[in-house]
């Protein structure tokens, strides 16, 4: 009696097909990382545009002026705006961190989840605004791409996670277990 083998994922197989699958994921991961590295530049401390009414202040206010998802608009108006400098710094480090970690493939899964959250925040802020010309599908593609990076753990191919995970497995310990999950 023959034993049926479970089908293998394209990223797990060798040869040209496996390599093409892995390189595609690396491309998605790096392009997402570079996008966030690039976009971090206009999050300008220390006021993040709150004095001039431009920059991050203007864009986050779109959530209130042009609501997409009412609970998020309420959150921006009642929580973000009164504590805007704090949320400015959160955005500064979140976007800089997403760019930094995705490019190198470090803690890729948790970084991709942070990317999904941030992409939803951006989508809920800007989708209905008519001040700047935006292509709404760009945000859906961004969310889908982050989910693909999360689901495939894309940092394990040509990324630091691929080097670090065997070391974390060998070292054991609670922190190493946590890092294994995050990668």
């Amino acid at each position, binding site marked *: 009696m023959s034993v049926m083998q479970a089908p293998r994922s394209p990223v797990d197989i060798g040869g040209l097909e496996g390599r093409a699958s892995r390189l595609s994921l690396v491309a998605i991961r790096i392009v997402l990382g*570079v996008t*966030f*590295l*690039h976009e*971090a*530049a*206009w*999050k*300008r*401390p*220390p006021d993040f545009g709150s004095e001039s009414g431009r920059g991050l202040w203007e864009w986050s206010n779109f959530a209130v002026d042009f609501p997409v998802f009412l609970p998020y608009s309420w959150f921006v108006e009642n929580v973000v705006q009164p504590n805007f400098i704090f949320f400015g710094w959160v955005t*500064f*480090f979140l*976007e*800089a*961190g997403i*760019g*930094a*970690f995705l*490019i*190198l493939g*470090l803690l890729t899964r948790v970084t991709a989840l942070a990317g999904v959250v941030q992409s939803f925040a951006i989508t809920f802020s800007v989708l209905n605004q008519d001040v700047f010309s935006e292509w709404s599908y760009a945000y859906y593609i961004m969310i889908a791409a982050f989910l693909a990076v999360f689901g495939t753990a894309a940092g394990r191919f040509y990324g*630091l996670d691929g*080097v*670090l995970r*065997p*070391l*974390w497995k*060998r*070292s*054991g*310990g609670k922190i*190493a277990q946590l*890092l294994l999950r995050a990668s």
Partner: protein
Amino acid sequence: MNALPHRTPDEVSTEGTVMNAMTEPVRRAVIVVGAIVLIGGIAGLIVSSGQDLTEPRGARVGALMHLNPLGSWVSIALGVLTIVGGVLRSHAAVLAASVGLFVCVVFVTFGANRPTNPLGGTASTVSFYLGPAAGLLALVLAERAAQQAASSSVEATDDAAREHDH
């Protein structure tokens, strides 16, 4: 008959030396990360050639981050230190480069968009320094932790062998 391996002090010492070395995958990763920092610094030096050494708003490197000449030279120095650390398999050199990159993160974070911004960076530059800083630190700490775990396991085996002998 003793079923457990019994090591002489010399054997333990030899193994300890091997376990403290940088493994090949980590060495390769360190060199690649160092090359990214070095290339970023060289590109920064080219695009910021007309600027003052500590221009607060550095020149744009491609469509990526901003660096002034000082920021570019610091990146080049840290990139070279990282690569040398990888080539020589020196954890200390790689750790020093990581600390240097974290210092750059702090300088750019508190300098960005202000009149005194010694490296001329923005949040994108924070991203450029933060990845290699965290990556190099993770590589060195993870490798040391793995080696320590292996070393503890060897010692436990040796202790068990000694007790078995007695």
